[in-house]
């Protein structure tokens, strides 16, 4: 356990160095947030029907999505990609630690460090200027905090699975893009899940993607009452376990078939 924590923290500290990228990312995400808010604004003023989510809640939901965007499992780790391609992944096997746990720990850092750098300014600016609201209640804030931890565990499990899939695809471009497309649409990042057609909701709530963004965000705005956090966490945990087991099986098979050339 100590080894994994050390890997996590060293990786985390390294990633915190990319401040220029974080500034650029923050500006990009604010610009996107603006566009999205204006589009929702136009839709909401075009219809008198009472919607399943209020416009104010949607605005906050959009800014949460922008603030926590770097947490979303949308790409593979460039270093693991090059390790697999050049087969230096063999060195990883020499380390006296479990490879799955090793990759899982480093991915926690990959998903959290950039998020921390970007989310703070977006939260501050969003709350001050862009119509983002603070959590519905203290209980909602606590529930949101717990669900974000669950979301990170789930997101990291999916990212690790993508990283492992590199052992077959090498470039990983196809499978990663397809997964990214599913994540971006079904997690609620593009539009909040409650605004999807009613028939699609049941399926979308069962899929793992909702646990990455939608359920934590809805706990924040109070659209899901705080006492229901237990169901949100259960959903995240079940999917995390499934993805971890799947990832481990895949990794074991990958290591058996992998050929490392000498020299």
């Amino acid at each position, binding site marked *: 356990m100590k080894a994994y924590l050390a890997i996590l923290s060293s990786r985390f500290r390294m990633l915190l160095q990319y401040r220029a990228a974080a500034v650029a990312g923050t500006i990009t995400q604010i610009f996107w947030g603006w566009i999205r808010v204006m589009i929702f604004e*136009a839709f909401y003023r075009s219809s008198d029907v009472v919607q399943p989510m209020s416009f104010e809640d949607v605005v906050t939901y959009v800014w949460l999505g922008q603030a926590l965007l770097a947490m979303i499992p949308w790409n593979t780790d460039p270093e693991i990609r090059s390790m697999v391609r050049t087969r230096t992944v063999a060195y990883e096997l020499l380390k006296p630690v479990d490879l799955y746990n090793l990759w899982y720990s480093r991915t926690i850092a990959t998903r959290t460090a950039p998020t921390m750098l970007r989310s703070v300014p977006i939260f501050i600016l969003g709350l001050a200027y862009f119509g983002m609201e603070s959590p519905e209640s203290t209980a909602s804030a606590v529930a949101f905090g717990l669900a974000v931890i669950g979301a990170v565990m789930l997101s990291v499990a999916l990212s690790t699975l993508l990283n492992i899939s590199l052992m077959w695809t090498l*470039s990983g471009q196809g499978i990663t893009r397809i997964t990214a497309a599913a994540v971006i*649409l079904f997690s609620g990042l593009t539009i909040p899940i409650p605004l999807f057609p009613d028939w699609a909701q049941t399926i979308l709530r069962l899929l793992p993607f909702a646990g990455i963004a939608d359920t934590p965000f809805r706990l924040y705005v109070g659209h899901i009452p705080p006492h229901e956090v237990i169901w949100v966490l259960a959903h995240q945990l079940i999917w995390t376990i499934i993805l971890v087991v799947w990832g481990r099986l895949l990794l074991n098979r990958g290591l058996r078939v992998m050929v490392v050339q000498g020299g």
Partner: protein
Amino acid sequence: MSIANTLNLYWKYIGISIRAQMQYKVSFIMAAIGHFLITAVEFLAIWAMFDRFGSIDAWTLAEVALFYGMVHIAFSISEGAARGFDLFPSMVKSGDFDRFLLRPRSTAFQVASMEFQLLRIGRLLQAVIILGWAVTTLDISWTLPRVLLTIGAIGGGACIFSGFFVIQATLAFWTVESLEIMNTITYGGVEAASYPLAIYRDWFRRFFTFVVPLACVNYFPALAILGKPDPMGLPTVLGWLSPLLGVAFLWVTLQIWKVGVRHYTSTGS
């Protein structure tokens, strides 16, 4: 150095680039499918919103599909063709650009023809499908001028986006850091122009009309095609001038590029 000779050379370069990408066929097909899906979800999201709200400021889904199809076709063309400019900052960093200065062709031409990203066909394909759907669903009388305007607007749009890539590359002459901020305008512009500009707030509309003339190659021509007046009261004639504006924008960015080339000092590595 006639134009025919230059074009011939361009096709040769493109041919080499495409053959190289086809060496990994499965990887290419997967990537293209992935690209198709990741851009198609954007339209799925728009569809879901219309399913819920019915319309956006009196614009229908088919009308929005026209805007969406036109801008995405334009963008995918420039994404495929001007990709070299996207890779350019790394050439400056490595000093590889020096070789281009020695060859008897313009630097802009060489950079542009460096790589043709075929996988962008994914975005192109989905945009063509959506534009096709819009065109058949909307009640438009397709006169020859309207057809030409549609093609011209897409061409003008491709010029504007290529201009963005040129500016982004030009900035690399002064700062070796890659400038992600330009991506914001490029991709943000695509996202924004997928909807009629009239739905946005004033400052934003002005930005994409006067600062970055994206609206001129998408919004105004689409209005002219639909035969709708601009809710903001700008003259429809603007739509018919748009393709020229796109070409003018690209020309201006290429002049800035030339200034950049004169300013270039090799990293020496």
